[in-house]
């Protein structure tokens, strides 16, 4: 099975405010408010206008950030993408 390609909700659909370690995100489409911890806002940002797989996301994040040591970064990113998908903030391309 080929890896899933994800695309983020259009940025003009969301209002975001970083509060502290959590960001508050208002989804104009659903009317719901979510609180997101790292790395979810960063994942949304790197998928903005650029669909990608969990591996793509891991690579793009590595360019912008120092990422804590992890054996299974792509696995963790994949988990996070599932969580974002459950909120409707990313969809399969």
């Amino acid at each position, binding site marked *: 099975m080929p890896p899933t390609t994800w695309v983020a909700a259009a940025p003009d659909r969301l209002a975001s405010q970083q509060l502290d370690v959590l960001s508050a995100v208002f989804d104009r489409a659903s009317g719901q408010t979510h609180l*997101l*911890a790292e790395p979810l806002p960063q994942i949304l940002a790197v998928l903005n206008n650029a669909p990608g797989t969990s591996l793509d996301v891991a690579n793009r994040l590595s360019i912008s950030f120092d990422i804590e040591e992890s054996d299974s970064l792509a696995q963790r990113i994949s988990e996070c993408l599932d969580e974002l998908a459950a909120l409707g903030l990313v969809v399969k391309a």
Partner: protein
Amino acid sequence: MIDDSQRDGVPPGGEQGETAATPRRDAGAAGHSAARRTVLMVGAAGVAAAVTIRPAFAQTAASVFNCEIPVPDPANSGRYIALNGTLVPAGTRGAFPGAARAFKGEEVRQALQGRSLPGTSYEQGQAYLNYIRRLRAGQSGFTCYASIQMPR
């Protein structure tokens, strides 16, 4: 005591609006230069990183007003309740007469979690609960039932 630098692990949050996705500047940690790249905490496997806000007011309002659910609704008083929760003519075998008093929202909430409805046998309680589950908007008790089901 309450200046930003002493909030638990929280960086000063003055001017970062609309930039949730950009790397945060080093938040005042001594010795870090501004040029250094931000460390991204990806979190441990299996740990949820999102929560959706679900205000509980409807629930609160219902508990304040201590709602109740009549079984059956007054328009159908006299009819019996079958095990599957449907209304049947009085005297139907295997069905139960209506409850003598309306149930409190809290009693129903607990019964839905496995406690028995006060003053009922097991099957009678199941019939009443099935009746309550079938309530539709406009029927007496529906709003109360709906408020019980609201996530906290």
